[in-house]
């Protein structure tokens, strides 16, 4: 359904004389099948959010294509893009900031219904009530303002608004990282249920590997603007081949006091994306790094389960 080819996004910083480019996304390729949920993991600053925004053309790319149902998203006119947007929606990280503070929850949900003429005025209220119920809010919440609700309730309202126009594809950008564990579990349940119920295709962006593990069919691991590994969720979690993914997995704190996992502690922080390391971008923090890693950049190869590493 969605094909991403050679996607690049450089942000310009610095003044007139010291022009620099932050290479947020530096050549990313992947595809998402219809009805599939693809997870995108990586540390903060690796460019995963930028990928999510590029796929919806919320930012213009420096280079590359995003092909949805055979059409290149970046070649669409404004009018056609607006039509396309009806199919694609995004859940942002911070629910309080994604709702208009001066609009009641009911009006927030009604807005896309009116805009895309999903239902007529008579049926508007029924539709809103039905949406509210799908996401587990109470009818009384319709007349409340976002500040009167909790973060979890606001995130439910955001999901209700997204479902209003029957999208085919959603990007969920860290939808639960601002929420408590229990509320997180509630929201993830709703996302999983609506995905199944409406057969949605989903790009699930998160830094939390445990959440990714239960929410996705396939996982792409991103490091410093590039994908280092992509494969079925099970392949990544049980048979990862990239040292970075290995370190990420070993960093998950264990909830069982009897299990002592051997931990790979990565040294230092992620390098600056203005000036990424030569060769394999991960070589500065990789314990297996060899000479070739410093010189030559590995490409993503493999059948189904793809890895970008010289030593795999």
């Amino acid at each position, binding site marked *: 359904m969605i094909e991403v080819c050679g996607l690049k996004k450089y942000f310009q910083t610095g003044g007139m004389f010291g022009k620099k480019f932050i290479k947020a996304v530096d050549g990313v390729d992947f595809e998402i099948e219809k009805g599939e949920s693809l997870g995108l993991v990586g540390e903060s600053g690796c460019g995963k959010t930028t990928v999510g925004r590029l796929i919806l053309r919320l930012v213009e790319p420096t280079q590359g294509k995003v092909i949805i149902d055979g059409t290149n998203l970046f070649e669409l006119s404004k009018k056609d893009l607006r039509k396309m947007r009806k199919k694609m929606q995004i859940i942002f990280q911070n629910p309080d900031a994604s709702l208009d503070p001066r609009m009641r929850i009911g009006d927030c949900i009604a807005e896309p219904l009116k805009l895309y003429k999903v239902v007529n005025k008579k049926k508007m209220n029924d539709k809103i009530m039905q949406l509210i119920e799908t996401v587990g809010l109470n009818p009384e919440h319709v007349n409340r303002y976002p500040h009167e609700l909790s973060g979890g309730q606001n995130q439910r309202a955001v999901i209700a608004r997204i479902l209003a126009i029957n999208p085919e594809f959603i990007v969920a950008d860290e939808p639960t990282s601002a929420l408590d564990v229990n509320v*997180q579990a509630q929201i993830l349940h709703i996302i999983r249920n609506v995905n199944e119920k409406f057969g949605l295709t989903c790009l699930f962006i998160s*830094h939390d590997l445990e959440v990714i*593990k239960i929410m996705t069919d396939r996982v792409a691991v991103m490091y410093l603007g590039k994908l280092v590994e992509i494969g079925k969720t099970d392949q990544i979690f049980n048979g990862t081949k990239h040292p970075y993914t290995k370190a*990420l997995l070993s*960093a998950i704190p*264990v909830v*069982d*006091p009897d299990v002592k996992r051997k931990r790979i502690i990565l040294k230092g922080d992620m390098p600056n994306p203005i000036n990424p390391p030569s060769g394999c971008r991960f070589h500065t923090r990789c314990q297996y790094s060899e000479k070739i890693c410093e010189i030559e950049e590995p490409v993503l190869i493999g059948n189904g389960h793809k890895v970008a590493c010289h030593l795999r």
Partner: protein
Amino acid sequence: MTFLSIQNLNVHFHTEDGAVRAVNGIDLDIEEGEKLGLIGETGCGKTVLGMAILRLLSENTTIKGRILYKGKDLLTMSDREIRRIRGKEIAMIFQNPLSSMNPVLTVGTQVAEPVELHQHLKKQDAMQKVIEMIKSVKIPSPHERAKEYPHEFSGGMRQRAMIAMGLICMPSLIIADEPTTGLDVTIQAQIVELMSEMLRDSGTSMLLITHDLAVAAELCDYIAMMYPGEIVEYASIRDLFKDPKHPYTMGFLDSLPGRGLKPIAGLSPSLINLPVGCKFHPRCSFATKRCKNNRPELIEVGKKHYVRCFLYD
């Protein structure tokens, strides 16, 4: 004599909307060298409890009860006495290092503050100590980094500087409030590793305040589960994970993504409008009439294992 003993602590804030009852009758002991994790959801009063120990709460607060540190009540001490304890004997590591550090002072100056204040060292000697401390929290090139400002540090490095600041006077108790929240998993693993190393070497006691049970499991010996304003269960790490007693603890464990992702229905009550009886009864599947009307007491159900629930009465 217990090292730190919190006895029947109540903390209420007065607001326009009514009294916010953040802490209601909490009893908690920490022995010397012990690491206790205080776990709870947002708004359950866990940070307030941590702040109350060092008397960092604002003026509109009513605090009742006793907090005995080595036998002396911290709540009735003079300001002068408490100032001698803050940072020297009991130190705090805050959640968000960017907003709790001073943006216009260099990191070195800020790490030096507690030693200058408490140990009256000369500036040069203090700086020497600061460099050693920065080195021991594994910040590379400590001489240069000490002269930089907080915004020049990454999130993980800032948290390391916070830890250096907290431990520089060798306190006997550290209160760490969500020290790894907001950090990436790999950086979180670095910080957890660093903290467990530093605490093992110094024998410092710790009160770790967090919503992340997994982090607490790695760093603590005991866990106290908090549900709006009270402790509902207290147990060793092992007992809590293998044999949780309180329905809230069970629900909390089940809602973790690694353990089934089964959420507890409903929301935590607001601290302004707490339910009568057991605070958890509106969400509890075992609730009976008794739970609605009476507040359960903490009952001992095993060795150092306490639970506030009528099921075990």
